[in-house]
């Protein structure tokens, strides 16, 4: 996949998880890698940039295991940015969905039409 494109999607995913709760770094990686194939290499640089750009702030909180953890919290500016990206993405993916399902959702039917046309 185009690197730029993938980065944009992961950025949106990071924003989505932090729109709902304050989380520490490892938990963000954990939550995203449950659904998509990502790791620290892809997530942390984006998390760090969004923080430097003022979309997140950080604070330290003691963990039950002892060592304090850095929590990321979304700022107002971050939330506004999140809404814009989310709208854009929804409009885009909505269009893609329309295109790929023009011929219905059933693979068998698409295949049957393809076969009758090409035979």
């Amino acid at each position, binding site marked *: 996949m185009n690197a*730029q494109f993938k980065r944009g999607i992961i950025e949106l995913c990071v924003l989505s998880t932090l729109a709902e709760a304050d989380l*520490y*770094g*490892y*938990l963000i*990686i*954990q939550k995203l*890698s449950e659904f998509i194939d990502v*790791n*620290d*290499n*892809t997530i*942390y*640089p*984006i998390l*760090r*940039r969004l923080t*430097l*750009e*003022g979309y997140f702030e950080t604070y330290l909180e003691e*963990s039950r*295991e002892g*060592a304090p*953890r*850095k929590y990321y919290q979304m700022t107002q*500016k971050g939330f506004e940015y999140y809404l814009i990206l989310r709208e854009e993405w929804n409009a885009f993916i909505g269009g893609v969905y329309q295109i790929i399902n023009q011929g219905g959702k059933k693979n068998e039917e698409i295949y049957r039409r393809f076969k009758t046309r090409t035979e």
Partner: protein
Amino acid sequence: MKKFIDDLKQELSKRGMSEAEITEIIADHEEMISAAIQEGLSEEELVSKFGDPKHLADELAGETPKVKQDMDDEFSLWQEFTPTDGKQTVEVKLVSEDIEYYLTKKNQIEVYANRPKRLTPYQLSYDNGTLQLKRNKEGGIISFIPFRFGEVSFKIGFPMTMTIADFSHTSVNSDVEIAGIHAERFKLVTTNGDVQIDSAKLGDATWNTVNGDIQVHSSQFKSIASTQVSGDFELHDSSISETLKIHTVSGDAKIENCDCDLLDLESVSGDVVGKNLYPQKASLKSVSGDILICNQEQKPIQVIRSHSVSGEIQIQ
């Protein structure tokens, strides 16, 4: 995972990151790794979760906004402004003063100058989100002073959280350096000055130069409209989501590792070389200049127009 941390430290310093940045990134990773170990991840799982330090360092170097580290000694702070909310505009009109625009970690717009005693001909203000720096019209003996005492230079730092809606710079002989700046619309007009742009995000960018050279590295644009008479233009490792328009009379253009939607090239006698330049569509026109695009990857380029009177046009 000690090796991961050690390698990461080394890779980050190789990429010119500051001590403070490295310390912060390492601390974040020590914390994340210890959190993962507490969750009971095996060594193997840790390796897949944290990946490759080299790759991580590359990504970090690419993602981290380029912040200026040290101010040069001969410069001193002239004025500082706290950015107000709302739309931000920058308007700079100079004659032959060199200027550098950069990003700072502070929340203030800072203006530095190298000759504090010679600032009377300049007007600097920040009102309603508009930063203005101008040289007053002057005549008579005053205009000779620069030749006797050397020219004033400026450096203007913007908070890295700031997005500038409209950025315009006009000057005659000034050399201009831009690092890391984030603007939605960018307009630059210069006659003889050279321009360097690095790690910037400039939305719709327009520049007009006569003799000055322009060099752009690692930047992102929505569109570029570059008009030059005899100055040369270089564009490296950048991406343009829409149109890359280059019009030159006798200046040469060199483009390396870039992609764009439409490449619109017009040259009278300047030569244009594209290496790993991947437009979707291309319109190429020249009188006597040669246009050569040679790419490693075979991606189709739809050529809308290709015309030359006596130059050679080639796509390889």
